[in-house]
């Protein structure tokens, strides 16, 4: 199988951290706060690496959009078994307003450039909870999508996806190329072991700018205010 998989990995505030709203209420405090890979992105990476171990895909490429620090997140994906990384440089104001629409445009452009056969993303990020990037990417590429995947099976050039939906589990069969978004029960991400962490240091990360991909990352959304939720009443 000569398939190439693109996996999106987002750098988010670690889920164990206590979130604090900035005093000017324009956002949350991110300076000096522990960040890590979005848990659903970890599951996406694990699934891609599993496919590679089963020899169903040839190459796994980890992609992240953001400033210099996202390289750490890409390295973690490399340590888990991805072959190479792509760092899409977005910083400053552009990074603050970067959202699913812009990211999906970037992924669509990369998918064409890298001739990807499969894109695996986390179903949503734990900071914005948007749950939109996968769906938008599929739409922009006019590819089928298997979202909320709790099981993925590759059968020749078709993908069987079991989806977690409100009523239970839905099984669909979609053609490749396709976009899949990972749900919680898809797999349990592996720990990156030392030999792999050492190997990952030698793997390549290429830098690319959104403009190089012909993508405009400006946002048409404006955050008005961010507030802390009032504590729920205690019984």
């Amino acid at each position, binding site marked *: 199988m000569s398939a190439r998989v693109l996996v999106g990995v987002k750098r988010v505030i670690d889920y164990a951290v206590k979130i604090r709203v900035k005093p000017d209420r324009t956002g949350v405090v991110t300076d000096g706060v522990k960040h890590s890979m979005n848990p659903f992105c970890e599951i996406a990476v694990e699934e891609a690496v599993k496919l590679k171990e089963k020899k169903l895909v040839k190459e796994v490429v980890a992609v992240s959009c953001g400033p210099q620090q996202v390289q750490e997140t890409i390295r973690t994906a490399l340590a888990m078994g991805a072959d190479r990384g792509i760092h899409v440089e977005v910083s400053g104001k552009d990074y603050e307003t970067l959202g699913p629409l812009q990211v999906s445009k970037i992924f669509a452009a990369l998918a064409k450039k890298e001739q990807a056969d499969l894109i695996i993303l986390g179903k949503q990020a734990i900071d914005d909870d948007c749950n939109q990037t996968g769906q938008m990417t599929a739409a922009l590429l006019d590819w089928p999508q298997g979202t909320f995947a709790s099981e993925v099976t590759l059968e020749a050039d078709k993908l069987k996806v079991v989806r977690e939906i409100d009523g239970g589990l839905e099984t669909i069969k979609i053609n490749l190329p396709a976009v899949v978004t990972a749900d919680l029960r898809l797999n349990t991400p592996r720990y990156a*072991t030392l030999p792999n962490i050492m190997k990952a240091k030698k793997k390549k990360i290429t830098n690319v700018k959104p403009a190089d991909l012909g993508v405009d990352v400006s946002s048409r959304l404006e955050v008005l205010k961010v507030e802390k939720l009032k504590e729920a009443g205690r019984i």
Partner: protein
Amino acid sequence: MNVRHYTPRQQIALFHFVIILQKLKGHEEVNPETPYTSDTVGNPGAAPPRLPFSRVTQEDLAFFRTLLPGRTITDPDLLKSSNVDWLKTVEGNSEVLLRPKTTEEVSQILRYCNERNLAVCPQGGNTGLVGGSVPVFDEIILSTSLMKQVITFDNISGILTCQAGCVLENLSNYLEERDFIMPLDLGAKGSCHIGGNVSTNAGGLRLLRYGSLRGTVLGLEVVLADGRILNCLATLRKDNTGYDLKQLFIGSEGTLGVITAVSILCPRKPKAVNVAFLGCSSFQQLLETFQCCRGMLGEILSAFEFLDASCMSLLEKHLKLTNPITESPFYIVIETAGSNATHDEEKLHKFLEEVMTSSLVTDGTVATEATKIKALWSLRERVTEALTHEGYTYKYDISLPVEKIYDLVQDMRGHLGDMAKNVVGYGHVGDGNLHLNITSPSKDPALLAAIEPYVYEWTSKWKGSISAEHGLGLKKRNYIYYSKPSEAVALMGSIKAMLDPKGILNPYKTLPDNIH
């Protein structure tokens, strides 16, 4: 009978001999005064007969109810959990649980009990592992659970002053919001009280880096047996004015006074914490890894713990935790804590490269994010919990020369053979402290007889401590001579007699039944 000149082994043998003599003379029925869970005959860890303290009367209850309205508990259902220890191995029959809120109330309680000759069992989080935190008979339980105020915190010096009933985890959370941490950390942090930690001189996971409570506790407020309040709550780093009395109470397990407030020096919260989980194929390689670690990580090393393969299988079996690396005979948890993430990662990666290429370590993983760090730590912190699912656990907390630590586990396995279901070793290898645990489906006196005094003699032979950090409590009081000479124990007895002439504070604990 003067047993002064006999070795500990001979003393225990004599003890057994006396019991057997008594049995032959017909004292066979179990003394109703002794707690039901202890095998009274021939077991130095069991309770002695009840000493002639007064019993609680209606008048006494009336006094307590006036002093502590709504905080004098006599309901047997509510008392049940305070009468049994965390391991569910010892149970008392106390009928009164008192919950004072202030030092003044504690003082009045003790003054009254001293006059009335009523025995008192001070109790914090009741997480002790040697039966020291629960009554043996009907001692009044004096709980610190309502003394949970933080009194002051100075964020320049890092000195925290708080009441003795503050839960360790709550203090940690309080300090972390202010960019500091507690100098100690242990698996029981969600329940244990700082007063209890100090009374036990708890060690824990961070001792390697921040030292023992004997260094970090700056002051104590203690109520003595007769109700006198001893206020040594200094918040000074240095104070050489007279004898350092607080050292008497640290580690005294509630037998010399009731600690009501603590002032403690807290370190700054590290900006960068990393945890590595490594696998070693032999204990010798584990020790060499430790030496390498000390050399390359030295100043940022904050914990070095180990567990063996048996522990890992119990974690997998009972708690469904996953082993993050390939199966190995030994596992190490290394924690680094420093002020600069990039520097620390560089040091850690160099160290990991070194131990991997020299094959000291066969596999491993590293974590920098809070969730992963917690997951890796739980592999070490939850071993105690996993063991409770195997039936009855015989726990030994031993200090030994570091090279000898695992020899004891292997010797024990050979010595016990099929009698024991599991013989596992884990602990603070960096501090030379082994937690040896032996399980059997249920309590087994024959197994106990095979373990003790063999384990204590083994320890004594290598000049180790029979209780590194857990204390002596009820279960180990009579073994003190394996690690301390008689002159020392005799002096301890004198100090106890001076501070608590009637012996009402936590009787039957810490000091042996026969001091000579």
